[in-house]
C-alpha cells in the first residue's frame, strides 16, 4: 500500500458507523471536563444519539455493501447484522446506565465514551475480513470493556472483576495473535479469503497438523471471548463483580461480536479443514452447556446465576457453530439477537432491583416482587421464560433453529443432550420466578421504587423485541438466512 493511499469515498461510507461512534465518543471526552457534575447525564443522551445515528449509518453502509480498504473491511449482510446488533445492545446498556451511574454518583462522560469505543471495536470485528483487523477490533472492544468492568474504582469487587478480566483476557488474545502468526507463516496471508484459497488448494495447502495448531490457538482466543468451556472460568467472577449495566453490556455485545469473528474465521478461512476443528468445537459446545447449566443450578447471586446461564447459552450457539452450515450460521445469528434482548432485559431488572452499591443481588431478595411491582416482575418472568425457551418468545425460536440446524448436520447426540440441558436449565430460571411470584414480599421488594423512565424504555423495548422475535421470527431470520453466506 503506497504512503499516498487515499481511500475512495465509498470506503469511508462503509465504515461510517465506526466513524460516527468514534466522533461521538471523542466529543463526549472533550465535553466531559466542561460540564458541571449534575449535567454529566447529558453525555449519556449524547451517547444514545450517537448510537442511533450509527444505526442509521449501518443502514447507509449496507447500501454501499462491498469490500473496503483493500478488503480488510467487508460490508456484507453478516457485518450489517452484527453491527446493528451490537449498536442496539450499546443503546440498551446506555439506557440502563443513566440512572445507575447517578445512583452510584459516578456519572461521567468517560463511561459513555468507553461504551461507544467498545461498540466501535465490536462493529469493526463484525465487518473485518482480515486477521489483523479482527485483532485490532477485538482489542479496541476488549480494552474499553476491561475499564468499564472496573468503573466504580472504589468498589472492591469492581477492581477484582477488572483485573481478572484484563489479565486473563490479555493472555487469551495473545493466543489468538500467536495463531494469526502461525497461519500467516503457513499461508503467507492474513486475508481470510486468501487463507481459504490456499487451504482449499491441495497443491498449496500446508501440512494439516500445522493448520490445526493455528486453528487451535485461535480457538483459545475466541473461546475465551465467548466464554466457551474450558475457557469460561473468568466469566462468573467478572460478571458478578462488574457494575450491573456493564454486565448487561458485556454479556451481549462483546459476546455477539466475538461470535461474529469466530463464525467468520471458521466458516471462511478454516472451512476447508472443518473436519479437523469440528470435534474440538463439538466437545467445547457440550462442555459449555453442561458446565453452565450445572453450575447455575446452585447459585444464589443473581448476577452469578445469569453469568452461568450466559455460559450455557454460549454453549447452544456453539452447537450451531459445530453444525458449520449456512443454516447453522443463520441460527447462531438469530440466537444471538434473541439472547441479547432477553439477557439485557434480565440484567436491566437486576440493575433496577439491586439499588445503591448493589445491595440486593440475591435470588431470595426478589421475594414477592410480583405483588409489589407486578409489571417489573412480569417483564422479568418474560425474559426468564424466554431464557428457558418457552414458545412465543425469541429464546424458543433461537433454540429451535439451532437444534434444527444441528439435526440437519446429523449431530444427534449433541442435539439430544442440548435439549435435555434446556429442560434442566428450566429449574434455575424457575427458581427466580418461584421467589418472585410464590413467596411473600420481603424487605427488598417492599422498598423498591418504580423504575426510572430510561430504564423502563430499556425494559419494555427488550420485552417487545423478545415477544416479536417469538411471534414473527421471520423478520430477523430471513435477513440472517440471506446474510449467512459469507464472502469467500
Amino acid at each position, binding site marked *: 500500500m503506497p504512503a499516498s493511499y487515499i481511500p475512495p469515498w465509498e470506503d469511508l461510507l462503509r465504515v461510517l458507523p465506526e466513524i460516527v461512534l468514534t466522533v461521538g465518543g471523542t466529543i463526549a471526552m472533550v465535553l466531559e471536563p466542561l460540564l458541571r457534575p449534575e449535567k454529566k447525564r447529558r453525555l449519556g443522551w449524547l451517547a444514545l444519539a450517537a448510537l442511533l445515528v450509527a444505526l442509521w449509518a449501518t443502514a447507509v453502509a449496507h447500501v454501499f455493501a462491498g469490500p473496503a480498504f483493500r478488503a480488510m473491511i467487508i460490508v456484507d449482510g453478516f457485518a450489517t447484522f452484527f453491527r446493528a446488533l451490537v449498536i442496539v445492545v450499546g443503546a440498551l446498556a446506555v439506557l440502563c446506565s443513566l440512572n445507575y451511574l447517578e445512583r452510584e454518583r459516578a456519572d461521567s462522560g468517560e463511561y459513555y465514551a468507553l461504551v461507544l469505543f467498545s461498540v466501535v471495536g465490536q462493529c469493526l470485528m463484525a465487518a473485518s475480513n482480515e486477521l489483523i483487523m479482527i485483532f485490532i477490533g477485538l482489542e479496541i472492544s476488549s480494552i474499553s470493556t476491561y475499564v468499564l468492568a472496573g468503573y466504580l474504582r472504589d468498589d472492591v469487587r469492581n477492581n477484582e472483576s477488572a483485573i481478572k478480566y484484563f489479565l486473563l483476557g490479555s493472555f487469551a488474545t495473545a493466543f489468538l495473535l500467536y495463531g494469526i502468526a502461525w497461519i500467516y507463516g503457513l499461508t503467507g496471508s492474513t486475508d481470510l479469503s486468501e487463507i481459504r484459497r490456499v487451504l482449499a488448494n491441495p497443491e498449496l495447502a500446508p501440512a494439516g497438523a500445522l493448520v490445526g495448531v493455528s486453528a487451535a490457538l485461535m480457538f483459545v482466543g475466541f473461546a475465551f471471548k465467548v466464554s466457551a468451556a474450558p475457557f469460561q472460568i473468568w466469566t462468573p467472577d467478572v460478571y458478578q463483580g462488574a457494575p450491573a449495566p456493564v454486565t448487561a453490556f458485556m454479556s451481549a455485545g462483546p459476546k455477539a461480536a466475538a461470535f461474529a469473528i469466530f463464525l467468520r474465521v471458521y466458516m471462511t478461512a478454516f472451512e476447508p479443514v472443518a473436519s479437523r476443528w469440528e470435534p474440538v468445537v463439538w466437545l467445547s459446545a457440550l462442555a459449555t452447556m453442561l458446565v453452565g447449566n450445572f453450575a447455575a443450578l446452585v447459585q444464589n447471586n443473581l448476577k452469578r446465576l445469569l453469568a452461568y446461564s450466559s455460559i450455557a447459552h454460549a454453549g447452544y450457539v456453539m452447537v450451531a457453530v459445530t453444525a458449520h452450515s449456512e443454516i447453522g450460521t443463520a441460527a447462531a445469528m438469530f440466537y444471538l439477537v434473541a439472547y441479547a434482548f432477553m439477557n439485557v432485559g434480565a440484567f436491566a431488572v437486576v440493575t433496577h432491583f439491586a439499588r445503591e452499591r448493589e445491595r440486593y443481588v440475591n435470588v431470595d431478595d426478589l421475594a414477592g416482587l410480583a405483588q409489589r411491582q407486578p409489571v417489573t416482575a412480569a417483564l422479568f418472568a418474560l425474559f426468564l421464560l424466554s431464557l428457558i425457551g418457552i414458545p412465543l418468545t425469541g429464546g424458543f425460536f433461537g433454540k429451535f433453529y439451532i437444534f434444527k440446524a444441528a439435526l440437519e448436520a446429523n449431530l444427534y447426540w449433541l442435539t439430544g443432550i442440548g435439549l435435555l440441558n434446556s429442560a434442566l436449565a*428450566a429449574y434455575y430460571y424457575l427458581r427466580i420466578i418461584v421467589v418472585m411470584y410464590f413467596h411473600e414480599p420481603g424487605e427488598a421488594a417492599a422498598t423498591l421504587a418504580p423504575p426510572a423512565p430510561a430504564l423502563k424504555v430499556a425494559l419494555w423495548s427488550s420485552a417487545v423485541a423478545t415477544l416479536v422475535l417469538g411471534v414473527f421470527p421471520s423478520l430477523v431470520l430471513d435477513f440472517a438466512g440471506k446474510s449467512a453466506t459469507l464472502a469467500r
Partner: protein
Amino acid sequence: MNPVNWILALPAAGFLAVLLWPGRAETARALALAVSLVVFVLSLGLIPGVWGAGASWSHVTDLPWIESPAIRYHVAVDGLSLWLVLLTTLLTPICVLISWRYIDRRVKEFYALLLLLETGLVGVFVALDLFLFYVFWEVSLVPMYFLIGVWGHERRIYAAVKFFLFTMAGSVLMLGGIIYLYNRSGTFDYSILLEQINSGALMLTPLEQRLLFLAFFISFAIKVPLFPLHTWLPDAHVEAPSAGSVMLASVMLKMGTYGLVRYSLPLFPNAARQSADWIVTLAIIGIIYGALVSMVQPNMKKLVAYSSVSHLGFVVLGIFTFTQLGLDGAVYQMLNHGVSTGALFILVGYLYERRHSLETAAYGGIATPAPWLATVFLITSLASVGLPMLNNFVGEFLVLQGAAQVNFRWTVLAATGVVLSACYMLWLYQKAFLGATPEPVREHVYDLRPREWAGILPLIVLMVWMGTLTRTFFPPISAASAQILEQTKVNAEFLVSRPAAPPLVAGVMPDAR
C-alpha cells in the same frame, strides 16, 4: 369466520382484558365468566359441522405463519378433538364458578391465567401443524405452573416445579422428534405428513420410527401419566387449587392420550404396533397400582389423583389394542374421566371450602347436614366406579371388550381395576358421608349453594347423558377413530424386525395382530 379461531382468540383476549381491566375482583370474575361462557356457546357451534364432515376435517383454517421453515397456522376439528374442545370450554366457566369464593387473593391474575390456559388447551386439540401443536403444548404449561404455585396448598412450590420440569423434560424430546421429522419430510403439517406416509414418499427406517415414536411417546406418557412416569401427578393434583386440579385432571391429562391417538399411532404405525405389548403392560400395571394406592390414601385429593392414574391406564390400554372398539372406548373414556373426575375434584373442593381439610378422617356423616351434597357425591362416585347407565361404564366396557378381542388376559387383569375402584370410592363415601356426624362437620358443612349447584349440575347431567344416550357422542368419534385405525395399518407389512414368524401350520393362523 371459523369459530375455532374465535375459541382460540377470545380467551387470549380475555386474558389481557382481565389482567389490564382496572377495577376490583368482582369485575375480573364477571369478565372471566362472561368470556368463558361466550366461548362455550361458540364451541357448541362446532358440532353440526363435525357431524356433517364424517371422518374429514371441518372448520379448517390454514394460514402461513412463518415462511422458512414453513410453519402454518393450521387448525381444524374432527370427531376426536370435537368433544375434547367442548370439554375444555365447558369446564372453564365451571372453574370460574367454583373459584368464585375460594380464590380471594390476586384474583385478577387467577382468572387471567385460567383463560390463558383455556387457549393453550384448546390449541393443543385443534392444531394440525406439529410446530403449532408444540407451541400450544408448552404454552399451556406456564399458566398451570402459576396456578399451582401461587394459589396451591402447603407444598405448592415443590409440586409446581416438579410438574413443570417433568413436562418440560418430556417435551424437549418431542421437540427433537418434531424437528427430525421436519428435516426428513420438509413439512410440519399433519395432513401432509400423513399423505407422505400413505404415498410412501416418507419412509422411515424401523430404527428411525422406533426412536421417533419413543421421543413422542415419552412426552405423552409423562402427561397421561403412564406408570412409572406418574409421580408428578399426585403432587400437582393435591397441591393445586380446585380449579387447577379440575383443569389438570379433566383436560391436561388428555393432552397426553390425545397425542397418542392423534400423532403416535398414525405417524409411526409400525413402531406403535410393535410397542403395544410393553405399553399395555405398563397401562395394566398403572390400572392396578393406581387403584391399590388409592385404597390406602387418607387424603381425598390424593385418592382421586391416584384413581386418575388407574382410569388413564384404561385409556392407554384401549388405544394400544388397535381395535375399533378399544379406540372408541379410549376416546370416550377420555371424556368420561374428564367429566367424572372433574366433578370429584369440584366436590372435594367444596368440602375443603367448608372444613378446610382434605383428610378423609376429618369428615364423617356429611349426609346428615348436607344431603344434596351427599347425593351428588354418590352419583359422581358411582359414575367413577363404572356403574351401568352412567358414563364411565360405557367407556370401560368398550375398552375391555376391545382388549378381549386381542388378548383375554388383558381384560381379566384390567377388570380387577374396576373392582378395586368400587372399593376405594365406596369406602371413601362410607367414611366421609355416612355414619355418625362429628361436631365440627355438623357445624361447618352446609349443603350446596346455588352457585355451587351451577358448577356441578352440568356435569351430573352429562354423566347420565353420556351413560345412556351414547348415540349423541359416538358417530363422530367412531368415524375419526376408524380412520386413525386405518392409518395404523399403512405400511404394516414393514413389520420386519419382529422375530421371523413361525412356519404356518395348516389351518392355524398366527395371532391376528
